[in-house]
């Protein structure tokens, strides 16, 4: 963000530098002391079950000392940063010239990103790793856009979105392996089945709001996962489903054989063709999601979703049918989750319940929140940042979720409305009310 920072004339610090230093030192000391107690047993002592099952332990005092020192100096650094940053609540004033330039940049970023995405398989044709990563990012972009319908537009906090992803994946896997149906027949079926489950979840939770809704959707996601694990005769249980057929280009398989695409086109076969095909497939699916969402937002149902997000009681007072509004939001979001799931199954060729844990739900939700709930571009950038960030930490596999959790906490403290931007309702009155619904808690005001 460019633009000069205009601060109110800083109030003359009443404290002498020495007092400030003493204050910072004291605060850091307390933090270090708290850290010492917190980490004393968990870090200072390491337990492990020995070969005979007997628990043994050994001490790790240097690690403990290191952690405590890190907290001490980290606390000092944070305080100094806060001093340097100045008082909170300063307003950024951007000169008009820069502002118009920024607006142009903002308008240009989406088409540029799209063109770049289209060109990725061309530019990185030789780099299989980048292509795979691109497919992964696009899968999450699609999941994020799907969940965005539920969370971003309709304002229904869904912590069990992975359930629909799982339903889609298993629908395709089981239909394809048992009945030999092709990917293009199964894809709509997977979407429909997932949407059906969305309605099944939606019906009972119609009356719930906020936190309660979140916990019920979480329970729902766990139930689906537990059923998949335990219903061994159908789903193969923890072993999953393997040998899921690869997709074909409208009946033409991408195989080295004579009837394969390469042979028909008269070019030399390369396994990269399939990767490129998968890349464009998920790109098309994601763009479909985006297009449908954008169109829906202009229809009465989309407006109803946004109204529901802003104020449910006012919605009901205006005669909007809450039942259909919520159910369609759940069904639409679930359908896209189902599509993404079917794609996931065909790409992997193998699925197991391990891919559909609560962590996935949280990751997709984090992408939506980071993107600024409701903003399509924001979600895409957030997915790129998040999955890219995950890749950076690939070497430190253990620490990945730790960093992810910390990032989520910091983000909520720093920018609770999302990093990229917050989408205002598509239509709104020119003159705002004195109090926006953003500022009031539910049931207050």
């Amino acid at each position: 963000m460019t633009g000069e920072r205009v601060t109110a004339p800083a109030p003359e610090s009443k404290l002498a530098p020495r007092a400030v230093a003493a204050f910072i030192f004291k605060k850091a000391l307390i933090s270090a002391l708290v850290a010492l107690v917190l980490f004393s047993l968990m870090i200072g002592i390491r337990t492990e079950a020995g070969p005979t099952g007997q628990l043994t332990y050994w001490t790790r005092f240097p690690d403990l000392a290191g952690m405590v020192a890190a907290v001490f100096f980290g606390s000092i650094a944070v305080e100094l940063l806060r001093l340097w940053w100045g008082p909170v609540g300063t307003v950024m004033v951007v000169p008009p010239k820069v502002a118009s330039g920024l607006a142009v940049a903002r308008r240009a970023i989406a088409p540029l990103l799209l063109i770049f995405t289209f060109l990725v398989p061309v530019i990185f044709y030789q780099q299989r790793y980048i292509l795979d990563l691109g497919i992964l990012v696009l899968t999450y972009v699609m999941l994020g856009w799907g969940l965005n319908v539920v969370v971003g537009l309709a304002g229904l906090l869904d912590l069990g979105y992975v359930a629909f992803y799982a339903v889609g994946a298993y629908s395709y896997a089981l239909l394809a392996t048992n009945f030999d149906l092709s990917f293009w027949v199964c894809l709509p079926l997977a979407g429909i089945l997932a949407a059906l489950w969305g309605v099944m979840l939606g019906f009972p939770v119609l009356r719930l709001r906020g936190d309660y809704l979140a916990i019920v959707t979480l329970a729902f996601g766990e139930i689906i996962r537990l059923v998949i694990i335990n219903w061994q005769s159908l789903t193969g249980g923890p072993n999953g489903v393997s040998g899921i057929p690869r997709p074909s280009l409208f009946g033409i398989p991408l195989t080295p054989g004579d009837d394969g695409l390469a042979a028909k086109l008269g070019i030399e076969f390369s396994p990269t063709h399939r990767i490129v095909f998968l890349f464009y497939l998920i790109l098309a699916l994601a763009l479909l999601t985006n297009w449908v969402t954008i169109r829906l937002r202009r229809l009465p149902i989309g407006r109803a979703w946004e109204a529901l997000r802003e104020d449910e009681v006012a919605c009901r007072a205006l005669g909007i049918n809450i039942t259909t509004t919520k159910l369609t939001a759940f069904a639409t979001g679930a359908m896209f989750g189902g599509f993404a799931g079917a794609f996931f199954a065909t790409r992997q060729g193998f699925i197991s319940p391990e891919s559909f844990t609560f962590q996935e739900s949280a990751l997709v939700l984090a992408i939506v929140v980071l993107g600024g709930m409701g903003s399509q571009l924001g979600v895409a950038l957030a997915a790129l940042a998040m999955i890219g960030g995950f890749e950076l930490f690939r070497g430190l596999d253990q620490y990945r979720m730790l960093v992810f959790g910390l990032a989520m906490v910091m983000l909520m403290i720093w920018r609770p409305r999302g990093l990229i931007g917050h989408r205002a309702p598509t239509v709104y009155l020119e003159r705002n009310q004195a109090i926006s619904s953003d500022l009031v808690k539910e049931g207050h005001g």
Partner: protein
Amino acid sequence: MDYFAQQLINGIVLGSIYGLIAIGYTMVYGIVGMINFAHGDIFMIGGFIALITFLILVSIGLTVVPVILLIVLLVSMAITALYGWTVERIAYRPLRHSFRLAPMLSAIGMSFVLTNYSQIAQGARVKPVPPIITGGYTLLEKNGFVVRLSNVQIVVVITTIVLLAIFTWLVARTRLGRDMRACEQDQTMAALLGVDVDRTISMTFVIGAALAAVAGMMYLLYYGLVDFFMGFVAGIKAFTAAVLGGIGSLPGAMLGGLAIGLIETMWSAYFSVEYKDVAAFSILIVVLIFMPTGLLGRPEVEKV
């Protein structure tokens, strides 16, 4: 009948553990109005600290079981309470007046942090301990089937009852309890009348964490193992218990805990062990649909 009696005993013991965790959920929800998603992980941390303290005490040659238990209880309560305080201070306090999803998401993040922190600090493998409290009584013996009440079960239930009594006294009779009830009704008004709201909320988290630590220790005693992932499922079940009992109600949390413990045990005993978690989660959904206020909760008035 004997089988039923045995399951009843097991269910009550399990229910006591759930009830202790549920109290933390219900108190925090009552005051701050958020689901403390990290509470299940606080319970797990409590179990780990109890385990480590126990190992140290045994290795320095302490053999008197009641003394060991008392020290382990106090240490794990103290340190886990500090964890509860720190989590509130870092992740929730800055978000007190943020939009309504923010604390929930922050709590989910904190839950990941705690889970992975224990995994990194203590390893991913299950930690077993030999039975600390052994022995028990045979209540009934018929046709070769024995109904037993083990000493561990007695300890768990008695500790729960004693702590619940202390805690009820704390909320009903002390200055802190009065402050807590005042904050629950109206934080602004409470602050105007001289209640330190921040401190009261911190204390709520501290007490909730201390009770979760007790639950963690009881879990360790009863099942003889802890692992870094045990907080997630136990946390959801305890939250179910809190909702079932009526969120915001302390006796309700205990009652809900007992109900969930009994349902889970009976389901495992008479239907299938594999689907016991599905049963518990389904109950959460069913209760919220048909009885959103729970057994002992007050109906929520919707104001516009």
